[in-house]
């Protein structure tokens, strides 16, 4: 019999709104980059590597910071991440830097972000997570297979603490949803089900 998992807390970043466990904060923003930097400052974070990250990593990193603020961080935490556009937002920048006849100047600092799992690497470095990683690409947020993956990792003894995240960034459009999942239960936790995930994603 598999243990029941619970959603401990969640972070939602969409349009210019930040939602942490139902508490909303609206920002006035000029660009996605400025939005990310405003969240960074409003949370008084001090992690200079943040400024080198691409937008996907910036927003994924911020979601993890907010999610884990008051939480334990076991080193075998498993990251199950997904999005629609993979690293396309940065792929476009690398492509522009290699087009013949123009200014050919590909940069390793850009190229490394042309993989969607780099955001998980950044979060692992920050929190010293050495557990499972999987990055999945879906046409839209489809929690069924993400839930199956997490329940499976639990039942096979691969992990007991999980971050499930949808991290979509493209053309200045930001759609982030992250939640922390483990077996702890209290009045505020919700059961880890696809219905509850869908409900929180749609808030």
């Amino acid at each position, binding site marked *: 019999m598999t243990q029941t998992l619970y959603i401990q807390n969640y972070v939602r970043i969409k349009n210019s709104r930040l939602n942490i466990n139902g508490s909303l904060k609206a920002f006035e923003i000029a660009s996605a980059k400025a939005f990310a930097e405003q969240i960074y400052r409003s949370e008084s974070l001090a992690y200079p590597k943040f400024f080198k990250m691409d937008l996907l990593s910036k927003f994924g990193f911020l979601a993890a910071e907010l999610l884990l603020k008051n939480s334990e961080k076991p*080193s075998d935490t498993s*990251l199950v991440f997904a999005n*629609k*556009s*993979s690293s*396309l937002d940065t*792929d*476009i920048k*690398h*492509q522009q830097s*290699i*087009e*013949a006849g123009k200014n*050919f100047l*590909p*940069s*390793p600092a850009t*190229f*490394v972000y*042309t*993989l*969607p*799992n*780099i955001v*998980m*690497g*950044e979060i*692992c*470095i920050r*929190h*010293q*997570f*050495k*557990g*499972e*990683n*999987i*990055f*999945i*690409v*879906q*046409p839209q947020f*489809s929690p069924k*297979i993400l839930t*199956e*993956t997490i329940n*499976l*990792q639990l*039942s*096979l*003894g*691969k992990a007991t603490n999980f971050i499930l995240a949808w991290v979509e960034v493209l053309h200045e459009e930001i759609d982030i949803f992250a939640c922390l999942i483990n077996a702890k239960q209290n009045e505020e936790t919700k059961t880890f089900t696809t219905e509850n995930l869908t409900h929180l994603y749609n808030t």
Partner: protein
Amino acid sequence: MPKVFLQKYHAACASGTSIEEVCESLAQNISSLKPRTFQFEEAKDFFVGSFPDEKLRQLSFNELCLKYIRKLNIDFSKADTLLILSTTKGEILSLERDTEAASLHKSVLFFEKELHCANQPLLISNACISGVLALVQAHDFVKAGLYKSIVVCAADLISPFVVSGFNAFQAISPQACTPYDKNRNGVSLGEAVAVALVSSEESEIELLGGATANDANHISGPSRTGEGLMLAIKNALKQSGEPKIDFVSAHGTATVFNDEMESIAFTTLGLQHLPLHSLKGYFGHTLGAAGLLESLVCAEIIKQGVAYKSLGFEEAGTSMPLNILRENKNLEIKTVLKTASGFGGCNGAVVLKKA
């Protein structure tokens, strides 16, 4: 829980357009890495492993995968059947003219429609461990009884996008790559497609299990201590019921730091005496396809009892000596460990066994 098996499979890479052709070429120790000209700021030649067949080279990523998936003859309209795709860059060659077409989710929609899938295909894009991870995910799903049949399709094509990027990192070898050799000086890129059916129906090759782990150290360089790879192997062996390993099919990209990191990880785990090879010297680093393609070669090695030498290796060049195969060797191999490591600090390992 049921046992999980590797059923039929197919593959194409620079060494051949079928798994038989590939293994025949490996048995003859032929390097299929050849210079190809890329037009960047000026024309420059890079050693790459391109498909040997002109018709294959003209296919897009989606077309290539479809062609090889169809060889398996699977009915994806069944509710208990799933397609898992593994790639780093998918349709990236389209990016020059059509941004939307290059988006990976478009490939998911393409296969869902073309193959009339009851379940939306699961696309895994996790750098160079994608292929190993896709195979492990298929194993875990079948073992848990969530799906009965899973087709794993792993592919990546050579593109100016990726070649220019690795070149910007100064990570490309000026000659055909030489994994673990003292004079190794970077990767040679390759292209490949590999497809395999995974199910609980008994066959010659059993999949015992696998795991992944993150270095939590650096996004573009391997850990100096090899901790992530060690953890991935340890956990994969635990998932597999701690079997005795007979052979290691390592990642061996031929960058100075990767091969060094592997030598430390294998030695720390006491696996340094095991016969080991990297296949990158034959057909290059095939990125998201590598883990699956090289696992399929492992399956053939188990069946045939011949392990191919590690092409390009002459003089030991890692701080911890490994038992790298200098010649093809007849070995009775029951259990193989396949490993991979990639950008983002990710590491993966999977164990295959003679059933």
